[in-house]
Structure formats: C-alpha cells, structure tokens
C-alpha cells in the first residue's frame, strides 16, 4: 500500500504500472485535477498545505480500511502539496482488484472520505486575490468543537 504526500508532479503512469500483479483483473484510478475555474472565477494556481503527520496517518487508515471493506487487493493514495498549476494532478487514487465492482466502489469511497476527513487545505489564487476553499463539512463522527 503506497501512501504518500509529495511536492513534485505525481507520475500516474508509474503508479499504475507498479500496482498491477497477475491476480488483478481490474484497476480503477481517480485522478483529481486542478481546474481552470471555481464557479466561473478563473484560477491561476492552487496551494495545498496539510497537517502532514496526521494526513499521512489518515490516508494509511483509508487505504487499509478500503482493502478490508471492499475486498480489493491493493490501494495507493498520493496527494500533492505546495503550488499546483491548472491541469496538474492534486490527488491520485489507484485501486487494484480481482473484480471491477469492488475496484470502483473502493476508489469512490476513498476519494469521498479523503475529501471529508484528511487534513489538507487548499488556497485558490484568482486574478483578483487568494482565498481558502470553504472545505467540506466534517462528518458527524468527527465531532465539531462547536457542537
């Protein structure tokens, strides 16, 4: 299970090549990309920062839980930090499995859960200023401090 935070470009092809073994029939990949706009405002670049020790721990737990929960063989999760330009990959999730249903479901679950629970934040630079993304409301099991 390869779980990483990186500051350089994510090499999707290498990750895909690495993960496959003979027992796999299916690989599902999710490639999250820096869009050129957010609700119509033109994005120049993004800056990602993380609570790194915790983010890695959470990502490792996600990968392990996905294997158990969906019965897939292997999961890789790589998230990039620092400055990213439009079109670059911010997160890559690769799931290898004997069966395609499990591969799709695990991959979807990992990105959905990562977006709600892994402590990473994104600041968007527009032509007219920079703002932190609103972020996803925390799930109920992660008790908010104000509740």
């Amino acid at each position, binding site marked *: 299970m390869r779980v990483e935070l990186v500051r350089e470009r994510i090499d999707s092809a290498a990750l895909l090549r690495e993960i496959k073994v003979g027992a796999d029939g299916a690989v599902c990949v999710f490639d999250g990309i820096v869009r050129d706009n957010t609700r119509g405002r033109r994005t120049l670049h993004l800056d990602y920062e993380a609570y790194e020790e915790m983010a890695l*721990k959470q990502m490792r737990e996600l990968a392990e839980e996905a294997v158990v929960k969906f019965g897939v063989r292997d999961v890789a999760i790589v998230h990039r930090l620092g400055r990213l330009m439009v079109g670059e990959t911010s997160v890559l999730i690769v799931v290898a499995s004997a069966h395609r249903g499990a591969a799709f479901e695990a991959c979807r679950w990992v*990105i959905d859960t990562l977006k709600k629970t892994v402590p990473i934040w994104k600041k968007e630079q527009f032509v007219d200023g920079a703002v932190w993304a609103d972020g996803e*409301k925390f799930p109920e099991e992660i008790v908010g401090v104000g509740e």
Partner: protein
Amino acid sequence: MRVRVRLFGPLRDVAAKAEGWRELREGDCVGDLLASMRGEGGLPAEMLAASAVAVNQEYAERGRVLMDGDEVAILPPVSGGGCES
C-alpha cells in the same frame, strides 16, 4: 501541564499567534482549551464552530481530557483531493 496548539489553513492565517505551548489545569479537556482560546478573542467563533480537533493526530471529542505534552490541532473544514466536488 502544557499542551501544544497547532492551527492550519484559514485558521492559522487569522490566528497564527494563538499557536504554541499553553498552560492548562490538570483535568482540562478539549472543550476547556477551546473556551479559553475563544475568550482571548484571537479565534473567530464561527471558524471554531465549524472546526474539528485532533489530539496527537487523531480526531478527538470536546470531552477528551488532555495530558501533559499533548499536541492539539484545530482543523478547519478540509479541502484536499482536487476541484471536482
């Protein structure tokens, strides 16, 4: 006893000075720490209300009792994973 407070993302932008080691009383919990920080006025109440807390890199509830040396991170809603929501 002392705990180390860490802030991230938008919270650190507005309240970087609130980071660092803080003295607490024995038996104080996460909620007590937050109340005292709120009292000092450095952290906007709406941002705190939407945030989660992690103690030693694990999400923790408000009632969690803190221990000497704990790392307490206040985490605004996360936004990793890309732009495809």
